[in-house]
């Protein structure tokens, strides 16, 4: 199943930004099938190329978003990914209604993982997801509440 994609031309009043214009992409991330995880990131990469964004910024956004998308599928049964492209930065917001992160400090440690064994056998769950997302972006904010969900906001400047 392909992720739902819509292109929204947002103006500054809608985004709360002082930038004049932005382009926004929204994806529903299907959490029921690990095989399809990453479709939204692949599509974002294509969209950013079409917009003429610098290659290194595309690479950083793609990797950070892909890690986030994988996390949403493993831990939170999917969610929503929104990517907004401004004149000089890209903002990625990943929202889910999953179990929340009990200990952010631990979750940010390289090698710490709560992913089940079957995910490790698929090549993930090495405890590199969140640290990697932070590494590849210029800013990352985690809002999480146990039993309610998690929203991660990442910024990549270019």
């Amino acid at each position, binding site marked *: 199943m392909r992720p739902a994609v819509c292109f929204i031309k947002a103006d500054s009043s809608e985004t709360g930004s002082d930038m004049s214009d932005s382009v926004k992409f929204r994806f529903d991330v299907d959490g029921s099938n*690990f*095989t*399809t*995880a*990453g479709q939204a*990131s*692949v599509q974002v*990469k294509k969209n950013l190329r079409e917009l003429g964004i610098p*290659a290194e910024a595309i*690479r950083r956004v*793609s*990797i950070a978003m*892909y*890690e986030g998308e*994988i996390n949403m599928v493993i831990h939170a049964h999917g969610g929503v990914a929104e990517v907004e492209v401004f004149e000089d930065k890209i903002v990625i917001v990943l929202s889910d209604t999953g179990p929340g992160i009990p200990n952010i400090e631990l979750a940010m440690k*390289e090698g710490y993982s709560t992913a089940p064994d079957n995910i490790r056998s*698929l*090549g*993930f*769950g*090495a*405890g*590199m*997801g969140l*640290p*990697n997302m932070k*590494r590849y972006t210029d800013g990352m904010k985690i809002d999480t509440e146990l039993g309610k969900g998690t929203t991660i906001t990442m910024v990549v400047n270019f």
Partner: protein
Amino acid sequence: MKISDIKTLLDAEVVCGEENLGHDVYSACGSDMMSDVLAYVKDQAVLLTGLVNSQVIRTAEMMDMVCIVFVRSKKPTPEMIELAKESGLVLMNTEKRMYEACGLLYKSGLVGNGVRHE
């Protein structure tokens, strides 16, 4: 070296992307852990792996890689081949094991530099 040289050195069978065998590549990495590829790899064009699922293709695509070699005679699924074709990736498989495959390529000049710099 060219991707076609990898095919020769590893006595590999090309699954898809034959039209891109003439591309030049300068470095490679070997891993069955995609998390580690995403975390530690930088600027490698070739991935050698024994892991077979769609996330291998997506990981390579995210990392701007151009070729995946499946070791130990692992064969990609039709879905993986379809994804690879969409991205222009070369897929091939070899009977050789990971250690030997990496060693043969390294010895022939396909180095593993470009590891992430902090």
